[in-house]
């Protein structure tokens, strides 16, 4: 950690004042106190702000920016170290590309789940005779095409993609795709999944009896069948853990997705589409076991 004599100063900068941000701040604060009680020599000073009334002071040793807007504002303040949380992976990638000189000072815990975990989920969900996974790629998500191909090959499924340039093309793309796939994997992309396109995607895929694998609990409630996602409390804990590591050792873990995850299942949709799925706790257990096996296999190689 910085070698100053004063207690290390942390600042948590929130994009908004909504419930999720408040929940994140509260969990963060509690987890930080608990972690530091065990590992830190000195208790850090924590300031919590939202961007609405925020004045950059260059004073924090670690600025933790929560959400997209806070991430952008945090760049201005040139903090010594910068940790982003509750941002999509694309935001993180844009930031590192845009401001490479800050790369040694910035890290992130992003919201997106690793593709490998999403494909594990698909493998657990699909019956043996259904192997065709569809993805609609938009301007933001098209960068994942090579990674998607690799994961599909790893998991022994066939990947079928449709590329769209804007949201007007989404409806026809879903119609074309639905006829050729067994399951639709949703990836966050503002042109593909937004409130305007949601109806068409969910209704068209449902009428073709194609379940949707979502990326958020909200998407599952709207009509996707299943999702692995990162709850806000998990991000808060990961940010707190990283901050404790920073205070204790002066270092931040590598940027990446959250280590923990949750599974959301819409049992009504699953039942209607003829899928007999276990409850989300059991599904989580099966996924964790699968990842354990994968990790062991990789280690053995």
């Amino acid at each position, binding site marked *: 950690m910085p070698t100053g004599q004063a207690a290390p100063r942390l600042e948590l900068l929130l994009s908004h004042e909504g419930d999720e941000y408040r929940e994140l701040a509260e969990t963060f604060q509690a987890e930080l106190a608990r972690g530091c009680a065990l590992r830190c020599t000195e208790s850090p000073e924590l300031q919590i702000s939202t961007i609405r009334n925020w004045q950059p002071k260059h004073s924090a040793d670690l600025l933790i920016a929560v959400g997209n807007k806070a991430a952008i504002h945090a760049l201005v303040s040139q903090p010594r170290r910068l940790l982003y949380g509750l941002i999509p992976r694309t935001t993180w990638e844009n930031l590192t590309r845009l401001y490479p000189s800050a790369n040694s000072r910035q890290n992130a815990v992003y919201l997106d789940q690793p593709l490998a975990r999403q494909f594990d989920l698909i493998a657990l969900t699909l019956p043996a005779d259904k192997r065709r996974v569809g993805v609609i790629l938009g301007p933001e998500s098209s960068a994942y095409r090579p990674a998607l191909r690799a994961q599909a090959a790893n998991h022994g499924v066939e990947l079928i993609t449709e590329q769209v340039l804007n949201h007007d093309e989404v409806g026809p793309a879903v119609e074309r795709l639905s*006829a050729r796939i067994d399951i639709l994997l949703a990836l966050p992309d503002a042109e593909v999944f937004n409130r305007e396109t949601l109806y068409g995607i969910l209704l068209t895929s449902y*009428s073709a009896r194609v379940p949707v694998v979502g990326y958020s609990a909200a998407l599952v409630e709207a009509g996707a069948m299943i999702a692995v996602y990162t709850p806000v409390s998990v991000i808060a804990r990961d940010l707190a853990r990283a901050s404790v590591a920073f205070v204790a050792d002066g270092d931040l873990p590598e940027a990446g997705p959250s280590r923990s995850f949750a599974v959301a299942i819409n049992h009504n*949709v699953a039942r*209607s589409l*003829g899928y007999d799925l276990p409850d989300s706790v059991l599904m989580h257990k099966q996924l964790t076991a699968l990842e354990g096996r994968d990790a062991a296999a990789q280690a053995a190689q």
Partner: protein
Amino acid sequence: MAIHSGQRRGALAALVGFAVIYAHPAHGVSESDFLAELPVVLSASRLEQPKHLAPAAVTVIDRAMIDASPALTIPDLLRLVPGFQVGSWSGSERTVASHGMADQLGRRMQVLVDGRSVYDPVFGGALWQSLPVALTDVERIEVIRGPNAAIDGANAFVGTINITTRAPAAHDRGQAQLTVGSYGRRQVDVAENWAAANGRHRLEVRAGAEHDDGFRQRHDTLSSRRLSTRYRFQATPRDRIDVQLGLRSSDVEKGFPGDDAQPLRDTALAHHYQQISWQHLMTGGSDLSFQFYHSYQSNKDAFDYAPYPGAFLDFGFTASRYDAEVQWRGSPVPGARLVVGSGWRLDEASADYALARDANISVQQLRLFVHGEQQLSDDWLLQAGAMGEDFEGVGQYLSPRISLNHTFLPRHALRLSAARGYRIPALYEQHARFGIYSRSDGSEIFIAETSPNRVRPESIIAYEIGLVGEAAFWHTRYDLKLFRHQIEDVIDPVEIDRVLVVPPDGYASVWEFRNSGKMDLRGIELQVDTKPTARTDLHFTWSFADANGSRLKRERPGLTVYAGMRGNVPQHSFSALLRHRFQHGWHGSLSWFYVDPMVWGGEGDGQKATNRFDLKVARDWRHSGSRIRLEFLVQNLFNRRYYDFYVPNDSRTGNLFDRRLYAQLVVRH
């Protein structure tokens, strides 16, 4: 204020950052894409029950089948339902029957469009030719085969035809479709939709016009216009309000040359509706919905009775229906589901020269329904429900249904079910007073059809054994049903007299509506949907029915005649739709329909076995952002001519169904 150079660089970086992250019109992905609450699209009420767990046999005709089928109208599609027959009593007027037993109006099935009953309260059945819904508007048709009164009330006597139209903006921004073909068929349908405020407001407007000259040598041209709109407002992620308005007016030619009781004439049909529904999703997955609608139908069909100067007949009527319903659906305890609801309906009719003038033609109905589902174990599912209805002036009736589904293998189940239902007599069957009236003062000259006695509702008891499942081989879904329907108190007109109306030899029969017959129907229905290749789909149905029943046909002094009803039910019927998607945007389908000989009720005739093939070939392509489809349709491909509903006799021509060719152009953007 002086700006530190680092700060300036930071500010610049932030600006670029904003540009990169927010350059997008939709501002790129942010955490709100992961966290914000979304409107619930697939709510429990929209979700279809898996077929092997349904309490009754269900056939679904989805958009893909509609697109592939060579049908031009909604009833024509229903030939793809096992046990269904479709008769054309004129070029544009259809009747839909399940195992026969129908005349011009299929009175024994409920027909719903987006939850709105389009069953005509005056004569019964659905006036398909007056529905303000074109085939292009339909998202899916779900047909419940077998009594469904426990869910949809009396009149869902042998089934329900549940039509769902496309939700605004579910697919394209707009669509235009043009159809031209044999017998002067010209049809244009256009639809355009708009969304605002991030999809919270959606509006769709549809309009169309069609013209069809009908059968050769028949006076049955149809010209019709239609306009409808649907507005959907997502008030909150959990509250959705739907408003639908629509109207259609049709000019229909009717009659046979030389038939005084059915002279050549022009008639006019009108139909309009207004519907509002609100759905509120509660926490815990339950939902509450409320629906209100008003619909209006009218038929103008009055003409002079030539042999009797100054006399006329009038089939005309107007009917208004007001209906309100509230429904709750949820899962009170794990493993159980419950639907409860209540509704009120008011039917008001006017038909001065068809209904008795002193009849109460403003009839209220109150209903209360409950349907419960309990998982008894992993393999056994029990479902039970009942609809209690109070019909003003008719009585109170309870229609229960119970079913037990045993999943003996994953996705394969055996279903046992029993149901009871009623068909409430249409207003005409209760209060008929149809005949020849005087032009000068409206007085009765001769009354041909009456209903002097109280007619009881028809009743049905149904037992079914179903075997339903989904196999991995060719992704095959099968649905086999063995059934027995015991129908009592069949309502039909009985000939009670024959009198001289116009001397010297103008005799006419006098009819009276009675509960005149009963029927015991046993049969089998099979439906198979399979996918032999990734590009090929096959839908196949077969039904067999063995009917035993008779009805009183004639009861004159010294003469009582009973008629068997066996002939009203075809023994075998088959249908199939084979579709294939070829390379380069080409696709096509071949359909086959076979119906054993059968006799249509009412004015219908005995129809010989019909065997018909239809073909459709289509090509899709894109042109400057639009998707274009050109289709060629051939109905009755091999030109195996048959007479549909009316067979020619000494005094009139029949409905000759020969080969027809059509071309359709569909442009979507």
